[in-house]
């Protein structure tokens, strides 16, 4: 059977002071993705290898890793595309590494929460009045941003986030836009206070790689630029019509 070499980044903090690569030979099967190869290593070659995964179908967003320097979902990336190898598998770039291929994601989760990713209402209408209605066109306004699976590939692709870890980042800002553009939501102003800041949208210099690597075709780069346009027009409105905000 044909095989292919996988160089996996290993980091066991109780043993090593920095990550190092370890090579494994795995079967090169046509129907195998990188995640299958990692599971093969864990099952047959080295049970101590640590990595995250869950659904195996590009929905859960758990198995994002760097493969030959590019952030990808390992469940959606075939081994054969990299033949004859070797293939380098590393933890997602720009994040601290907890162990082997597992990154520290607490800061990311805090950022997600900071943008209030839920429908904010000034006043909820009583249940008797029925549901909040939405036309297909209103749904289309935000639908692409709702496809995000929080896989964090966009953070790994973003050099700005690498240089400035406090940057709220692509997925969280796209998620804010998902709610801002929802006609049922009334929380845009609260989110603007959080995001029209140096750590928020103004940190972005429009590299555009976040959108290029997104496995769900979300366009976070576009979301951030649209946010900048809204923030600028809001600022001009409050400058020229200061009484308008009262």
């Amino acid at each position: 059977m044909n095989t292919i070499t996988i160089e996996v980044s290993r980091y066991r903090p109780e043993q090593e002071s920095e990550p190092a690569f370890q090579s494994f030979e795995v079967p090169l099967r046509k129907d195998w993705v990188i995640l299958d190869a990692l599971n093969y290593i864990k099952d047959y070659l080295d049970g101590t290898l640590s990595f995250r995964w869950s659904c195996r179908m590009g929905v859960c967003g758990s198995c994002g890793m760097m493969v030959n320097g590019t952030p990808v979902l390992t469940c959606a990336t075939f081994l054969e595309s990299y033949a004859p190898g070797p293939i380098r598998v590393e933890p997602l770039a720009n994040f601290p590494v907890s162990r082997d291929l597992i990154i520290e994601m607490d800061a990311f989760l805090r950022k997600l929460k900071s943008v209030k990713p839920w429908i904010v209402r000034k006043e909820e209408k009583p249940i008797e009045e029925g549901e909040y209605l939405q036309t297909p066109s209103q749904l289309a306004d935000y639908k692409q941003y709702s496809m995000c699976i929080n896989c964090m590939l966009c953070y790994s692709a973003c050099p700005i986030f690498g240089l400035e870890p406090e940057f709220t980042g692509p997925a969280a800002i796209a998620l804010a836009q998902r709610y801002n553009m929802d006609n049922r939501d009334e929380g845009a102003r609260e989110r603007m206070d959080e995001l029209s800041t140096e750590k928020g949208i103004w940190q972005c210099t429009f590299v555009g790689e976040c959108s290029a690597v997104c496995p769900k075709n979300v366009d976070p780069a576009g979301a951030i630029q649209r946010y900048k346009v809204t923030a600028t027009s809001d600022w001009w409105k409050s400058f020229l019509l200061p009484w308008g905000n009262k």
Partner: protein
Amino acid sequence: MENTSEHSGKPFVRKIPIFWWIRRWVDLRFVLRELTSVCVAAYCMIFLFYVRSILMRPEAYEAFTAQLQSPVMIVVHVLLLGGLLYHSITWFNLAPKAMVIKIGTWQIPDLLVAAANYAGWIVISFVLFWLALN
């Protein structure tokens, strides 16, 4: 391997090398776009000095235009123009991402948004050119 005091057990933070932007073409392209903004600023400065020389004595204007015609300045201008065109074109191509305009339920296509930006650029350039000639 035994656990020693030098192994912190903490998450490992990877450092970003200073020359991170030359490793991949996409990063280099982005940095070039950002750096060529210097060409835009330089052109603005030259334009402001040009206007200043017009507002001063005619000899100042003559001296300034003579300076602009020197071989060094022509080479500088060609380089600046190259940088300015690269910067402007890459930005105008990105404009539709930021400008999502809807008229009713119809969203203006990306191509039209970019075309409007280019049209504005050309019209303003011609107006300035006409003003400079007259």
